[in-house]
């Protein structure tokens, strides 16, 4: 018994889900694209990592490839996506996730099909104790999370991020102002998918075994819950949402050992999540954290101007 391992394990999952939540934030929070097939890109990344690492390639290369493959899929999905209404986009992306899962499941030659595929840990060659192993994963995941966070923070607080936010509000107006929203939407889906793909790679190397049953649409919905809870278009919100939901998950699991509950905590937990989301949407649709205005340096000029005039 080593409580630390469990705490670290929790941190790893928080980090991985925070990445997914951030990636959905790029697509939905900033660009307004309702991707309900997030799990497809997560899965693509996980499988890419699994397959490439079986060639004995180094883990960082596999992670990069995981991101790349997912991002190419993102571009592929964006082609129909750009022509579709929001509700259609939701259903198409949801279906896409299921098609991809069926494909991986049915094509045994690719990655073991229903058998799943074993994945070497990123630290397989090092002589780590289980606790160090988990520590290493925490460091890896959170370093990448922080890097992605900073990357997105910089990207979203730039004229580029401004265009994305503009597209969310009114894509025709953006086009009239000279920016092809098509290009930006494709890029947003690619960036979002790449992050989800990297998250998938991290997940695969941490679990060390993946199979198609891990990638049900439920994963997508969990990520949505995180983002809606934390607050769309705020990177802190995305991360905090992921941390809270994961904490809730684990907490309820532990809590039930200490309370004699007359009901199944698993059922009640999901039902409560459902209620929580409904109440949030009704009474606090912007989540815990509100969107912050852009910081590009331009806002500093305003102060000067306002004080001088």
């Amino acid at each position, binding site marked *: 018994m080593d409580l630390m391992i469990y705490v670290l394990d929790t941190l790893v999952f928080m980090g991985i889900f925070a990445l997914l939540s951030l990636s959905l934030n790029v697509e939905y929070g900033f660009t307004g694209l*309702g991707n309900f097939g997030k799990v497809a890109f997560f899965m693509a990344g996980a499988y890419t990592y699994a397959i490439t690492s079986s060639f004995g390639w180094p883990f960082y290369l596999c992670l990069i490839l995981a991101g790349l493959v997912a991002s190419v899929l993102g571009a592929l999905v964006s082609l*129909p996506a750009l022509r579709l209404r929001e*509700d259609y986009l*939701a259903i198409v992306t949801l279906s896409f996730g299921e098609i991809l899962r*069926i494909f991986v499941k049915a094509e045994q030659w690719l990655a073991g099909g229903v058998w799943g595929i074993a994945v070497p840990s990123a630290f397989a060659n090092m002589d780590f104790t289980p606790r160090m192993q988990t520590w290493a994963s925490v460091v890896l995941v959170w370093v990448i999370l922080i890097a992605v966070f900073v990357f997105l923070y910089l990207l979203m607080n730039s004229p580029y991020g401004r265009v994305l936010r503009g597209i969310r509000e009114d894509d025709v107006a953006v086009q009239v102002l000279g920016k092809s929203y098509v290009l930006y939407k494709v890029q947003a889906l690619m960036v979002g998918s790449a992050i989800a793909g990297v998250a998938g790679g991290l997940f695969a190397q941490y679990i060390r075994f993946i199979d198609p049953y891990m990638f049900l649409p439920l994963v997508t919905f969990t990520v949505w819950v995180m983002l809606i809870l934390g607050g769309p278009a705020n990177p802190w919100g995305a991360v905090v949402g992921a941390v809270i939901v994961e904490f809730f998950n684990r907490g309820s699991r532990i809590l039930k050992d200490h309370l004699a509950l007359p009901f199944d905590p698993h059922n009640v937990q999901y039902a409560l999540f*459902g209620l929580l*989301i*409904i109440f949030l949407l*009704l009474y606090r649709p912007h989540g815990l954290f509100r969107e912050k205005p852009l910081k590009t340096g331009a806002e500093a000029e305003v102060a000067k101007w306002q004080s001088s005039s």
Partner: protein
Amino acid sequence: MFDIGQILVNSVVTSSLYLLAGTGLTLTYGLSRFPNFAYAEFITLGAFCGLFFLAKPDGVFFLALIVAFLVAGFVSASSYTLVFRPLVERKTSLIHLMVASIALGYVLRHSMGESWGWSAQAYQIMWPVYNIGNVRITGLWIILIATAVLTAVALHFFLTRTRAGKAIRAIASNPDLASVTGINRQKVVLLTWFFGAGLAGVAGVFRAADTRLFPMLGWDILLPIFAVTILGGIGSFYGLIIAALLLGLAENFGVVLLSGLGLSTEYRMAIAFLILIGVLIIRPKGLAR
């Protein structure tokens, strides 16, 4: 090599289920203009209601259908009043409405899991089997197909002959004009949510009678039902009929084709999705319009 007659009958059985389950979805989707993912749970709920009557071999099937209709309808109408209508009034975005419907689905599904458990259960009804030439057909299929056809005919008359039916079409056609014409929109929409989910509940009873019963029952067939609804053109009842037939045929003949090609028949789910994606790209308004 394969028995076309039997596969045709199988397709019609599949289609009938899709038609029953899709009717309510297409009507409410057409009126309220957002896809309700909790719809799956109305199907499941109907199925569980049926259990009260059909857990013993001497159950009355039609009673189960009626109660499933009423209970699923009631829960749907209440969820509209308590969740979706307030959201719509707050001018919630389409995406948030979808998320809310998924959340509602969580609540309903896990409440059902808590009440009835996650183990599979089954109705205790033995259906007679008939041979028509090479083709075999069971009593359940006959009732299912008959119910679907009768519902379709009844709905046709309801939508074209009755005041409420015409009001539903009027709102779907032009909601604002419907208001100024004196139609109490909220009332009609609520009625549609009740009625549509009621049919979903009936479909749930059939599905459970045909297979078995557990809280994921509705979710397992939700995506094909969405495919049928969108294929037919949202809100178009006649498009739905065509789409249900088409998808029923595509899935069942698809199985033959897939195994002919040496592919896993699991791809039959993918067939529905691929047709859906294809139609959305080529003809986003669906087949009927």
